[in-house]
């Protein structure tokens, strides 16, 4: 099942970068969600909007069975922020100039339709900060679905994701649809800011993803049909 989901979404997964002169600096993962050239990612990767450098994305090397670890130079595609929801930590990007992408028929899932314990796949460029430019898939299960104090629906999964995975996609393996946007590793103290003690470090192997419903809301606000 992971194989099938990976096959479906590997072309969706892009490296989100910021252009700095003749270089690109890796920020995190973004993924295509609409044929009109829209991508979802984590809002935290975008910065506060004051940056002047250009946001770009670059696809992975999908031509080789055993892809080289590092892509020395990329031909990036410029993107702009179409919609952003900083409270839920989700952003909708758009290719600029516009680009139509061939996409599967079903992309966005319904996180309320699955049970805790459902199998999922996390996909992102885990180590692209260190110039390891391979999309990496991990299988996991939904350990819990939680609602934070500010009313944000999130999912905990029983696998560790890395900094490069932030903005990546969480796919339900049952129907191969995206149900969440990866936000990174999970620390309970982050969710209980008022109560945790600074000297207590809680190390978990779990990770956090925000429900894709907020991404879907951004797509709707942009006037897109959700498939």
């Amino acid at each position, binding site marked *: 099942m992971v194989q099938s989901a990976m096959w479906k979404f590997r072309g969706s997964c892009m490296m989100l970068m910021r252009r700095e002169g003749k270089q690109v600096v890796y920020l*995190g993962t973004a993924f295509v969600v609409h044929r009109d050239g829209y991508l979802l990612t984590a809002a*935290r990767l975008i910065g506060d909007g004051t940056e002047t450098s250009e946001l770009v994305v670059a696809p992975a090397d999908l031509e080789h069975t055993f892809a080289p670890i590092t892509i020395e130079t990329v031909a990036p595609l410029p993107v702009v922020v179409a919609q952003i929801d900083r409270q839920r930590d989700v952003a909708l990007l758009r290719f600029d100039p516009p680009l139509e992408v*061939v996409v599967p028929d079903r992309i966005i899932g319904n996180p*309320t339709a699955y049970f805790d314990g459902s199998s999922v796949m996390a996909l992102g460029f885990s180590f692209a900060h260190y110039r390891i430019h391979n999309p990496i898939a991990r299988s996991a299960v939904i350990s819990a679905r939680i609602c934070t104090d500010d009313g944000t629906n999130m999912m905990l999964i029983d696998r560790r994701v890395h900094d490069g995975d932030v903005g990546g996609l969480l796919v339900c393996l049952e129907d191969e649809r995206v149900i969440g946007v990866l936000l990174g590793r999970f620390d309970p103290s982050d969710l209980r800011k008022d109560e945790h003690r*600074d000297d207590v*470090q809680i190390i978990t192997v779990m990770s956090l993803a925000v429900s894709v419903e907020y991404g879907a809301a951004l797509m709707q606000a942009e006037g897109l049909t959700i498939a």
Partner: protein
Amino acid sequence: MSETVPQHTTEPEEEQKWYSIDVHPYVFFISAAIILASVGFTIINHEDVLQLFERIQLGIAELAGWFLVLTMNVILVFVLALLVGRYGDVRLGGEYAEPEFTMRAWFAMLFSAGMGIGLLFYGVAEPMFHFVASPLAEPGTPDAARVAMDLTFLHWGLHPWAVYSMVGLSLAFFCFNKGLPLSIRSVFYPVLGERIYGPVGNVIDILATVATLFGVATSLGLGVQQVNAGLDHLFGIGQSPWIQVALITGITLLATWSVAAGLNAGIRRLSEINLLLAVLLLVFVLIVGPTLFVLNAFGENIGYYIQSLPRLATWNETYEATTWQHGWTVFYWGWWIAWSPFVGMFIARVSYGRTIRQFILGVLFVPTLITFLWVTVFGNSALNIELLGAGGIAEAVQENIPVALFLLFENFPFAEVTSGLAVLVIITFFVTSSDSGSMVIDIITAGGNPDPPLLQRLFWAILEGVVAATLLVGGGLVALQTAAIATGLPFAAVLLFMCYSLRKGLAQYSGPQGFKLPPYEHGRRLRTTVSYPTPPTFGRRRFLIGRKKRSRGESGGAQ
């Protein structure tokens, strides 16, 4: 905060004003122009036009009858294969789509649009025709009665509903699951690709619009002549074009109200009332008629139909060298095929949220079973009178089909009640055929918008009545109806193409799919570089960064 992810919906995105216009410029104006020009030309030359299309239809029956027979069978097998195959679980509108209408409302609308008025008259007339002029048995014998029911079942049974199922399924799938417009052109997307939005697609939609309008309008025009004959028989009101125009006006006003009220408030309610009245009439005739004979016949007719279906469905009169099929089976196949864009489109519009298996069970088998019950109650009641009673129905059918229906009722108690109820059912069937036809044309000419603005709905509903009345008074109803049926042959080829396209679309939908970027201008290549995760994640990194900062006496807390 929403609980569910919004899915595709057939509801309009924003409220439209009644005077809003949302037309596909080419399809709307060219279709309207062709319709008006054709009506004008036919009124002036209706004899010539009639002769021309009669010759064409005769030629189709003689030379291409085998092709229509083959096409109908291919479509039936294709639909049955979809029913039992792996695509049966695909839900129209996506996995989380919920049906827009209840089962009762859905069946009511399917049946009212799909068969309607024809069944009311031919439920009695067709078995009678075959009984007195049987192609496969000694006329007037019990064997001829059995064959008559069998042939009627063939013409009104699984084959027409299979065609409607296939067209409806194709339209619903490509609209609700692939996000294409609810329009005939969309069905060809897997084969034609983006060209469906160009001239080829425009031509397909214009042909569908013109054929649908002529099909519905001429049926309305010819049908009111029959209604007038029936009313004259009952109440002695006489028969004249002006009475018929008045009937068309009344029916068109009701249909216009229904279309203007919308699918849910108008067409659905009217269809439910229509079906309720039809069931009342059916039960009433069953009770006051030869109940036991009809009940015995129902099972026997179905059994005989199943046994002889492969033989009759593939029969081409090859060894008899006769032409009986030209006027019956081939005519019916051309008729159903010509009507399939209209009925299929309407069925698609009301079937959002059903799985393909539910769709086929609902569209192929349930209406077929209701049709069989209807034909058995009315046809076998008439046959009972011919075989075991006073007779006279067969003779009346030859003279006047609608009058035969009322003559049948006169053989049973409470004839006034049944006749009155039948008139009511006839009128509501007319209205439901007319409103669904208008709605289909509205959708196609609005570029596939499932909820076109009110002004357009009014325009097409009224135009349909005006065309019917004009042709009735000026002449040319039969000519244009013949022309509409003659489109059955080219459209049969289109239907086969549609089967291939639907199969391909479903295979793509259910098979492995992926994302693919188109070729794009690369521009300058940029070097990748080692970087560090600037935005901290939830968890340990943030925690550690905060601690380190604080330990150095700097402002703590990551962003």
